């Protein structure tokens, strides 16, 4: 193209210099120059205006379950052929999946308005840290959105006939580069939407309780190896926060969840859960399930640690109580049918460290013992006489661990500190003799911002010990 420009330039020069008018040639040049200008416009524009970098909203934000974990009509009834323990585990996983569906529903609404969020933030040149005050944007609710909403909140009696154009609460959006990966963060206050849609029905259903907070946040990046969703859902009598991290690593899919809730409805109560669900994508199509849950109220306290594996081969489920350290192991086949179980409880004369003293009072006890010898599954309750660790979650990692992005996947145990008391469990037998050399990583979650993992300073390490006896 540039050559033509030069040509015209020379022609004009020549024309001025020679004073010769050559009409035919002149018209050809005019024609050419029109062509050049016409065709060149696009190219020129591209140089001046920078096309905004396309930000794609992450998809598939729900936990995918293998078919065998999907609920069925027999589940938790006496007609079920599956182990009760298996079904309790299955319900916990389904419960997290259903919660992930609710978050995905919120994010489906947010996705429909995401281009407007980007545009508004770009107009303000604020994409690095953009806050759009409430009611800046309006969400148009489609009929499929509304149907999905009604389905998700089917217990609430709200109308189909709602104003489908609703103002959004405050929106925060951030973009920043880390190496050559761009990180995106989005947090939306959906309370105005929820109040308009289900506010009245919620009050009626929950005896006058009302919603006071409903945030949904999402953190993702261009390499899409990590997506994090957090929902904060508070009413005047309860607080609920759930974070789900979706991680992919070498064909393995990991979901790490943290759930915190508290309620003042019947006295004050708190519950904390840490949930791990890993799809190993191995030949046996194995999944690892870890689940630690704690409940505290004025009159009652419980804490349980669970470590389980399910696959096309034999699976197991170990559950240990943080209250008395009792432990129970259940083995099941690929369909969840129980193969054997035994354990060590408060009233048995047994030792946690000697499985030959374990029993179950069932015929399957012997099977369990055989299977346990074969699989050698272990879960150790941890304790420390005192701790300077702050309240919260910690992950335990092998000493030589140094890959930040594999923290969740590589963890071999966890610690939970609540009211200055330490609770914890170790899933991996290989490390129980080297407790003092393990790494401790703090899980930091503030508000609705992204979860970060920070190594605990050596000086703050608690003196971890293994619980060896069931307390009486």
């Amino acid at each position, binding site marked *: 193209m540039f050559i033509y420009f030069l040509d015209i330039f020379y022609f004009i020069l020549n024309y001025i210099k020679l004073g010769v008018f050559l009409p035919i040639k002149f018209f050809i040049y005019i024609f050419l120059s029109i062509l050049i200008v016409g065709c060149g416009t696009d190219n020129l524009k591209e140089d001046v205006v920078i096309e905004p970098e396309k930000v794609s909203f992450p998809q598939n934000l729900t936990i995918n379950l293998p*078919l065998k974990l*999907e*609920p*069925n*009509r027999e589940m938790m009834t006496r*007609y079920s052929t599956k182990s009760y323990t298996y079904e309790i585990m299955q319900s916990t996983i389904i419960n997290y999946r259903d919660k992930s569906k609710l978050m995905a529903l919120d994010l489906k609404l947010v996705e429909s308005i995401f281009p407007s969020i980007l545009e508004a933030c770009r107009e303000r040149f604020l994409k690095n840290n953009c806050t759009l005050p409430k009611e800046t944007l309006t969400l148009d609710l489609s*009929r*499929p959105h509304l*149907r*999905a909403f*009604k*389905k998700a909140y*089917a217990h609430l009696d709200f109308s*189909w006939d709602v104003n489908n154009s609703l103002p959004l609460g405050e929106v925060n959006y951030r973009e920043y580069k880390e190496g050559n990966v761009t990180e995106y963060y989005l947090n939306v206050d959906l309370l105005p939407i929820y109040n308009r849609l289900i506010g009245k029905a919620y009050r009626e259903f929950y005896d006058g309780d009302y919603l006071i907070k409903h945030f949904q946040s999402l953190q993702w990046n261009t390499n899409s190896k990590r997506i994090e969703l957090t929902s904060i859902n508070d009413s005047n009598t309860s607080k609920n926060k759930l974070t789900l991290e979706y991680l992919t690593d070498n064909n393995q899919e990991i979901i790490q969840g943290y759930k915190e809730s508290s309620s003042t409805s019947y006295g004050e109560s708190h519950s904390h859960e840490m949930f791990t669900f890993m799809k190993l994508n191995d030949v046996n199509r194995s999944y690892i399930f870890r689940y630690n849950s704690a409940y505290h109220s004025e009159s009652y306290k419980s804490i349980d640690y669970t470590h389980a594996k399910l696959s096309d081969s034999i699976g197991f489920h170990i559950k240990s109580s943080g209250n008395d350290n009792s432990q129970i192991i259940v083995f099941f086949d690929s369909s969840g049918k129980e193969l054997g179980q035994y354990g060590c409880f408060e009233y048995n004369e047994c030792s946690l460290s000697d499985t030959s003293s374990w029993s179950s009072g069932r015929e399957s006890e012997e099977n369990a013992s055989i299977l346990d010898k074969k699989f050698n599954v272990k879960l150790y309750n941890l304790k420390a006489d005192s701790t300077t660790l702050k309240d919260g979650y910690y992950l335990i990692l092998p000493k030589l661990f140094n890959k930040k992005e594999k923290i969740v996947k590589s963890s071999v145990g966890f610690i939970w500190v609540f009211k200055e008391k330490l609770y914890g469990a170790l899933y991996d037998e290989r490390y129980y003799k080297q407790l003092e050399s393990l790494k401790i990583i703090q899980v930091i979650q503030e508000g609705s911002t992204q979860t970060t993992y920070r190594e605990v300073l050596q000086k703050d390490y608690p003196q971890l010990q293994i619980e060896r006896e069931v307390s009486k």
Partner: protein
Amino acid sequence: MRKTLLISLFIAILIIIGCGVQNNPKEEKSVFIPEKISVAIPNSLKESKSDTRKLSKIEVEPYGGASEGYKRLSDNTFVIESIIKDIKFNIMLENRVIPTIQKLCKDVPINKVCTIPTNSVELNITEALISEYEKFYPKRFNINENIVGGSIPFDAIEFVHYDNNHTYQYALNANLTQIYNQLFTKDYIFDTDHKYTTQNVQWSEDNNTVLSTLDTGYEDNVSQYPWTLHYKKEPTVQESMHLFHKELLSLPQPSSMFNFDLTTKDDKNRTTFFTMNEINERFSFDSLSHSTLSSYGELHGDRGLERYALNQYDNLYGNSKYWQDEVFDANGSNIASTYCSDSEYDECTLYDTSTWYINTNDSSLFEPFKNVGFNELKITGGNLKEGEYFLMKPDFKLINPTAQEVFAQNIGSFLVFKEFRQGAIYDKNFIDKLNELPILYAKYNDVLQQPLKTREAKIFNKLTNGDVPQLSLYP
């Protein structure tokens, strides 16, 4: 020249007009399936969950809470209303394509079945259609979002326009299987698909007589839900309906069969009569238990009465027979009951009403029962296949009666389901001639999946010879 031109112009106009008239097809009257297909069930026969006054019913019952007979009645009216709603929803779907069906069938002669092959007619799944669904089912959320905006083909459809010598002038038999499988999602991933969902509606020109049937089966090969509903309106006199329903499920789910008749007079009290027979199979605590029930009731304004006979057959607890008369108000709340059972725990004598328990001092409340002709039947012997049977007066001589004739003239009915038989006679005048009564077996319940084209005209079979059971009254 000008004349010729004028003439030819005139001829041309004539031709145009003439041809135009010929081309214009004969104005075909638009036909739609009537939406009124049933008698509204009075509130007092329904369990309304928000009604706290129901509690008073429980208080007066000395054994096990609410009256079992009333509970069965209200459970069944709930089922009835939900199936009627399904049929009406299907009618709404069918009415959307009936102009197309009519067009496709326009060359088929009267009284002949027009068969439209599978995939010829499509239902467009528009947002407007989904809004209709939402009005029908505000608490059901099983629309398959992927199909909204698309269309689903009907399986085979049959349409008939009958002449005025028939009871019904129109019949539409539609296989809705694909529609059900594609329009709705399943409750559980492992739930099976619909194997067949066939709805047949036949109606009279004046919309006053409607027979609707719906037959549903699932791929698990066990579940079956046949249903027939007959509705008849006699303007300014009364409207009535008769229905039959079976629910056959794989264990441990319960199975049942019931029939129900409801007639509401067009008088100022909306005087209503109802009858019901039911056979139930339940599986609990590792054992099968069965119960059978027959009941009769009347409503006069805000006062209702029900007489029922209930039988329990239980492997663990043995068998028992229970009879009750009860009076209730417009909300279905119990006002008075008198009852007895033959169980060893009761100190009354079942067949001597003077010894029965009574929960009121005002025995005049039971006066209206004096005219009730209801009597539970004891049905033994004979060779009976599963289904629904009607007792006719001894002089009933029709060889090929219509459904209207049988529903209007029968004096009793009974059901056969699994190894149980349950029924009643409603007319006192014939209790001493029980074994002279012609018994008709309703064949129409057996052919719900059969194409109209191959169905026999005869819809009742009179029992003969060795098939006829022995009928008597208790004790």
